[in-house]
């Protein structure tokens, strides 16, 4: 019988070896895949027990914490946004259902799970500290961000809350100084631990017809209107079609579009100089006939290639949140080309793209990659990662950029300029602003309210900030959009 018992012993040994091997497989090799199972409550609970890193606006002026985690009862941390509405388009939200904004794109650093943080977490094992996320330092200048949001709020109080968005960029680095969307939401509503509360608030926000969750600054596009004349001018100078800003171009009072019965006019059917103005005057007064005719001469292909240089038609831009592409379509019909050259037809831009256009001109023709994250710092303040400014490409020569700069200065300095009344040094506390207005027609047969657009940079001779503003249905560009940009620039210059 002992022979059989011996064999059964081997069977027992095999069973125990299989069990030991299996639990090793489960608790060592399948740990990550099991942790990643949807709805793994333990992982969610653990995340609540770890202090999530702060998000800090560190782009200028006094540093400002815009998202932090506060200890509540039961050792659980809850996300808190001290100035929720102003910074929501930047921070996004951190909810038990999911994240958006920086809370999403930098989630691994904020929750401490990034591979680069392994060493800090390992130290924590011995010092007894719970896992702590790293802080994300943003390029946002809280003064500029607040100025833009306040301007939109006070405008909203008089006009009933027209959707608006503004972006400010440091032209020489691409650092995003402000990223504002209005109307916006309170991310604190989505921070609680109670799924019932979050679901209710989330539902209310999703059903809100003003679309507060939409980040208009990067994820909504609008017709650029006359601000696109910057691209048209770049094409004209760059291709040598127009020699420089003093060259004259034809500017009839009425321009019948080629092969069409449609007649293009200037604002209020006005004349543009003597019908053969210098391009700087046509730009200053924003003559549609001059730039429409110029566009038809340049052709759709050339305009599209310059638009692409300005980063139109790029679906892959991230800041690190993904940015909806600004579009300049393929056009061959001369009439459509003429309209597209003045920023109508199917042209669409994000407010970010508006700022990038001005920033390119301000940075002597070189477009820098826009970015929000300046630095990531571990809990011990050591820098884990930092962003180095990077060039996307040279868009125009510095000569062309200088010509366009002169034209943009004229827009605000020449009493005939479209933004003289709203952005001249006299209005803007002596700051020299170079800008371009846009008033984009909207809706079927252009019956909708015009979108107001303004793109600019300052100081004109030594640019430090480039701003793009769009007010949906804001009417004439200079009236609605330019004052917001001026307030942002004033805040940046330390004036209020």
């Amino acid at each position: 019988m002992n022979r059989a018992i011996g064999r059964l012993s081997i069977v027992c040994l095999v069973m125990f070896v299989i069990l030991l091997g299996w639990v090793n497989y489960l608790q060592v090799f399948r740990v990550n895949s099991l942790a990643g199972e949807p709805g793994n409550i333990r992982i969610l609970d653990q995340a609540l027990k770890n202090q999530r890193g702060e998000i800090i606006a560190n782009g200028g002026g006094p540093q400002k914490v815009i998202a932090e985690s506060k200890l509540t009862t039961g050792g659980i941390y809850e996300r808190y946004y001290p100035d929720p509405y102003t910074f929501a388009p930047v921070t996004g939200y951190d909810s038990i259902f999911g994240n958006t904004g920086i809370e999403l794109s930098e989630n691994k650093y904020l929750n401490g799970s990034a591979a680069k943080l392994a060493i800090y977490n390992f130290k924590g094992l011995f010092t007894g500290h719970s896992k702590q996320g790293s802080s994300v330092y943003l390029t946002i200048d809280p003064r500029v961000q607040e100025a833009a949001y306040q301007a939109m709020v006070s405008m909203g109080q008089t006009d009933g809350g027209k959707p608006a968005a503004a972006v400010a960029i440091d032209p020489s680095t691409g650092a995003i100084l402000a990223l504002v969307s209005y109307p916006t939401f309170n991310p604190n509503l989505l921070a609680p631990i109670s799924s019932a509360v979050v679901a209710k608030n989330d539902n209310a926000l999703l059903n809100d017809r003003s679309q507060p969750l939409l980040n208009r600054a990067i994820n909504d596009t609008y017709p650029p209107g006359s601000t696109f004349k910057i691209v048209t001018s770049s094409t004209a100078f760059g291709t040598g079609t127009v020699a420089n800003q003093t060259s004259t171009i034809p500017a009839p009072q009425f321009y019948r579009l080629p092969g069409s019965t449609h007649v293009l006019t200037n604002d209020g059917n006005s004349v543009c100089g003597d019908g053969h103005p210098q391009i700087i005057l046509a730009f200053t007064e924003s003559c549609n006939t001059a730039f429409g005719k110029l566009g038809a001469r340049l052709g759709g292909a050339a305009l599209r290639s310059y638009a692409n240089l300005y980063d139109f038609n790029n679906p892959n831009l991230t800041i690190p949140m993904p940015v909806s592409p600004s579009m300049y379509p393929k056009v061959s019909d001369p009439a459509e080309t003429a309209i597209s050259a003045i920023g109508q037809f199917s042209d669409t831009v994000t407010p970010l793209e508006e700022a990038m256009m001005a920033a390119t001109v301000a940075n002597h023709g070189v477009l820098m990659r826009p970015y929000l994250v300046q630095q990531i710092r571990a809990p011990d303040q050591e820098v884990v990662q930092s962003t180095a400014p990077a060039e996307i490409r040279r868009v125009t020569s510095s000569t062309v950029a200088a010509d366009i700069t002169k034209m943009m200065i004229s827009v605000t300095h020449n009493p005939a300029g479209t933004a003289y009344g709203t952005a001249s040094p006299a209005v803007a506390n002596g700051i020299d602003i170079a800008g371009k207005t846009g008033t984009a027609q909207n809706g079927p047969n252009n019956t909708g309210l015009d979108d107001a657009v303004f793109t600019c940079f300052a100081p004109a001779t030594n640019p430090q900030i480039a701003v793009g503003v769009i007010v949906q249905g804001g009417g004439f560009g200079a009236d609605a959009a330019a004052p917001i940009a001026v307030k942002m620039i004033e805040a940046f210059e330390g004036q209020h």
Partner: protein
Amino acid sequence: MSALSDPLSGSGLSRGDAVPVPLPRGRRNAELAMLAFAVAIMLFAFVNVGYGLNGHIPSGLALYVAGFAVLMAAAHIAVRWLAPYADPLLLPLAAMLNGLGIAMIYRLQESGRGSNPGIQIGTLTSHAALTQLMYTAVGVAGFVGVLAVVREPRVLSRYTYTLGTIGLVLLAIPAILPGSLSSVNGAKTWIILGGFSVEPGEFAKILLAIFFAGYLVSKRDVLSLAGKRFIGIDLPRARDMGPVLVVWAASLLVLIFESDIGTSALFFGLFLAMLYIATQRKSWLIIGILLFLLGADIAANLFHHVGDRFTLWFHPFANGNQYGQLAQGLEGMAFGGILGTGLGQGEPFRTALVQSDFIMTGFGEELGLTGLMAILLIFGLIVQRGLRASLAVRDPFAKLLAGGLAFSLAIQIFVIVGGVSQLIPLTGITTPFLSQGGSSLVANWAVIALLMRVSDQARKPAPQPIQDEGMTQVVRAA
């Protein structure tokens, strides 16, 4: 771990049912030292639970640990008196598991109570750990009782058929009783009388092991006879198939009427192993395994609850299952990782019935892979000591009984730990010594008593013939 590598039994293998090598000493002091260690582990576990939950030493610490220590001391004294040559490892190993089980049940009972973190477990009363300690007292009393009554293993063989009948009746009662008197958490394996409930299958396992041992000892010669030879295997004679078919049918009935594939597999495995030890015929094993697979396959197709277990096995995280006990148990084990969260610091309360069927996932979560492997090795050692006693003892009845009990323990561990960890389809059976519940605890203490009785028999020094008295010899009559 295998008895093959054991120096004591190594020689026995080649000699068939050979003479054991008795040890000169019982090593009871070693047992006492290890027992003290087991109690110390329980003490540490309780302190750990308190610090993990709320940063304080549990208020009932002295009661639990002192009570447990007294019980183990009593068991130890009883062994010194009743089975002085018994294996010194079995009692400390069982004590270690029993103590860890009480600590874990205390940890689960405290979850979410007072200001403790976690969620209160609805299926666990606020005095579950105390109840478990009381069951331990009953278990130790049973342990001493078995050692006292069964002074020689062979005594039991006199009652082969009586005990076998009682075992079958116990097994059958829950199947016959209405659900209100036999069903707890969906398992129809209980007898509920008033506020008191017993799982008779736990005791039936021991009684049937005794019956199988007695039956097989008397019939082993007949069963060993070869019939036809088929693909190199000696088939038994058709007329000898009767008992195998009866046990197979009984295990299938358990499976069908009690929705309990685990218990069914356990009984059938126990019987097959003992049949194999008795006859040394592989053909019995092959026939038995084929019969069981056939029965399981038929049951899986005929009965939804069996088929559902397979679906759950393949898709534990499918929609609707992800908050089920299997998914939660697995996520808990993964959460514990290599070192575990520490007692009181994980979330085992997320797993339904973590105090009984799923207690190993609770240990896996809070003590980690390290703790889980330690517990598995303790079980492995108990099985090994049981098999070693079986190898060493001379009496065929005791040999069969110890071998069968040790092997059934191994199957039980494999079925429940494999089940809760998704290695095999989940079946609800208890984890010996750890799971909450009196029946399992008392029955397993009785198993330990029987294994110690057999090992005492094996290690007892043979009475020395007194050479001076010439022809006079000591004759063992029993």
